[in-house]
């Protein structure tokens, strides 16, 4: 790649002369191209090296993520090459970030195997992220055409199916992750499950790194957890669940564990993002076949989603996961301890839950995305949230979400069951107030205090945590900020 300069299109004879050409000359920069309805579209944030022409950089990204290699090859001429080439069709400077650009690239649908996230990602993020002429590269968003979406199964259960199975409507679901994450024996672990569920939660959860360690082998964990779940069902008359993490070294192990969970009557199993896209799709198919809800913990995602200049935005991961087919996905809390700018989180939640997500730059959504008839994913909000934030959580995250209070349940001064009750009472009181038309954003704290009058556990929770906030600036924020108009 060389320095900035105008480049004229080449005749075929010149174009295929052995040697090195600019990607632009090879046809990967196509500003006049009109994306077709069936194209897969991607927008990348590119940071070219100082002496690299941004258009050439965009063309290089298009080339490296589709047909090109670093030099001219005559075998291109055995194909309908211009059809298979990805085309960088638009380039815009990123607002407020000098040296960064948004490059829009269109890929023909024929480039991809149907129903395969592995194949899709092998192209889009396969080689290109290490490309030297770029200082940094980030995949910001994608538009998946209906034609390609329909080759994917999507979530095995979906929000509607999950609620109908759990017999739970009209309020967020409540969960908690077992703590300490590691070290509890099976018997002690199941105790926490029982206490939390019988106190009023809908779900408890294995943490991402609970698999089958020396302190608790997986069968033990499953048996004790299901004892806790079923006892809690009996004392409440509700249908509850524990996300049994079936993550393991091989697919065979995962199937074995998932089948055991199913045979014990669990309604849900869990996997980690680190098992890889193919394993996720396999488990999605298994879950559809076996009528199980599939929970995905996004373990590892922050290694590539958090930095604004390089990596893959989480909204793209969420999109891929809805295609691959998971029912639950951790998607941010806004108010908790983990990364989550309100606008970014909104964009991710829309990607999970809406049947049509319109372009909205303020939420980081670069394209209209109709979801065809793929089911909706239930977002999960987890990490440093507590009952005192209930009004904020309901306002930011809405009704179709699992609110997971790990420390906020298990760390309750009156015990785990009381912690669960505090969360459930706070939630029900807030939903009821919202429906009654009260301004929960402003009256929220009063509504909680009111509800705590007849609920000692909630009072204790508010006394303990009401002032805990995690008020840090997010590293992953949106670029497009609404400016007040001067009319």
């Amino acid at each position, binding site marked *: 790649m060389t320095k900035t300069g105008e480049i004229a299109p080449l005749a075929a004879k010149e174009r295929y002369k052995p040697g090195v050409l600019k990607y632009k000359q090879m046809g990967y920069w196509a500003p006049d191209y009109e994306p077709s309805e069936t194209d897969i579209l991607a927008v990348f944030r590119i940071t070219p090296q100082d002496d690299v022409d941004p258009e050439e950089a965009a063309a290089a990204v298009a080339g490296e993520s589709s047909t090109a290699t670093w030099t001219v090859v005559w075998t291109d001429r055995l194909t309908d090459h211009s059809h298979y080439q990805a085309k960088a069709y638009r380039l815009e400077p990123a607002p407020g970030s000098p040296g960064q650009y948004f490059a829009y690239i269109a890929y023909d649908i024929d480039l991809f195997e149907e129903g395969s996230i592995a194949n899709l990602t092998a192209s889009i993020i396969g080689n290109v992220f290490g490309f030297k002429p770029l200082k940094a590269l980030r995949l910001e968003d994608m538009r998946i055409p209906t034609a390609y979406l329909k080759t994917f199964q999507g979530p095995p259960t979906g929000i*509607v199916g999950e*609620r*109908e199975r759990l*017999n739970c*409507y*009209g*309020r967020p679901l409540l969960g908690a992750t077992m703590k300490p994450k590691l070290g509890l024996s099976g018997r002690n672990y199941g105790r926490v499950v029982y206490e939390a569920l019988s106190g*009023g939660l809908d779900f408890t959860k294995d943490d991402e790194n609970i698999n089958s360690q020396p302190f608790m082998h997986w*069968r033990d964990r499953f*048996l004790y957890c*299901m*004892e806790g779940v*079923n*006892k809690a*069902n*009996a*004392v*409440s*008359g*509700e*249908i509850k669940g524990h996300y049994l993490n079936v993550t393991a070294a091989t697919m065979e192990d995962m199937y074995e564990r998932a089948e055991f969970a199913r*045979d*014990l*009557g669990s309604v849900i199993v869990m996997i980690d993002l680190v098992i890889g896209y193919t394993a996720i799709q396999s488990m999605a198919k298994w879950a559809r076949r076996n009528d199980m809800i599939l929970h995905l913990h996004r373990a590892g995602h922050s290694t590539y989603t958090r930095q604004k200049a390089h990596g893959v935005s989480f909204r793209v991961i969420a999109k891929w996961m809805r295609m691959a087919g998971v029912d639950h996905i951790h998607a941010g809390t806004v108010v908790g301890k983990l990364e989550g700018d309100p606008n970014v989180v909104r964009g991710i939640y829309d990607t999970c839950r*809406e*049947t049509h997500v319109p372009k909205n730059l303020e939420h980081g959504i670069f394209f209209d995305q109709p979801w065809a008839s793929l089911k*909706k994913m239930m977002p999960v909000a987890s990490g440093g949230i507590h009952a005192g934030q209930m009004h904020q959580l309901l306002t930011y995250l809405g009704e179709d979400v699992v609110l997971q209070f790990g420390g906020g349940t298990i760390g309750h001064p009156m015990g785990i069951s009381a912690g669960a*009750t505090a969360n*459930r*009472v706070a939630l*029900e*009181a807030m*939903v*009821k107030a919202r*429906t*009654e*038309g009260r301004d929960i954003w402003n009256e929220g704290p009063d509504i909680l205090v009111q*509800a705590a009058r*007849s*609920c000692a556990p909630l009072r204790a929770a508010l006394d303990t945590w009401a002032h805990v906030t995690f008020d840090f600036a997010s590293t992953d924020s949106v670029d497009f900020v609404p400016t007040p108009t001067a009319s």
Partner: protein
Amino acid sequence: MRLTQGQFSFLPDLTDPEIAAQCAYALDQGWSMAVEFTDDPHPRNVYWEMWGAPMFDLKDPAGVVIEVNACREAQPRCYVRLLAFDASKGFETLRMSFIVHRPPDEPGFELIRADGPGRNIGYTLRPYAADAPPGRRYGPGRTP
């Protein structure tokens, strides 16, 4: 034992005006409402008896509250719940569900464990009230 199905079972029982306020919200969203009752509150008993068909095209909650009260009066020993149906694309399911009446006493559920090989256990819930024939399951007159 207090059955905690539905949206508001952890709060004090809703008064009629509170029920009306919830209905007003549902009707404003264009949802239709239905009253259902049962003497078998097993969590997987999906189909409670319908107290008439779902009420479509209502504008005001007063009509719903009339039916809730009529059902309570006719079925004092049953659970009564109020449901809101959303017919819009992407939902086409219940959007609200909460209990508006409970029997005078709630005996709860027995957890039955069927031992299998390899420490496997098959779990079953059984409402204690199911020992009595329908109609005599809850409250005074229940067979011990």
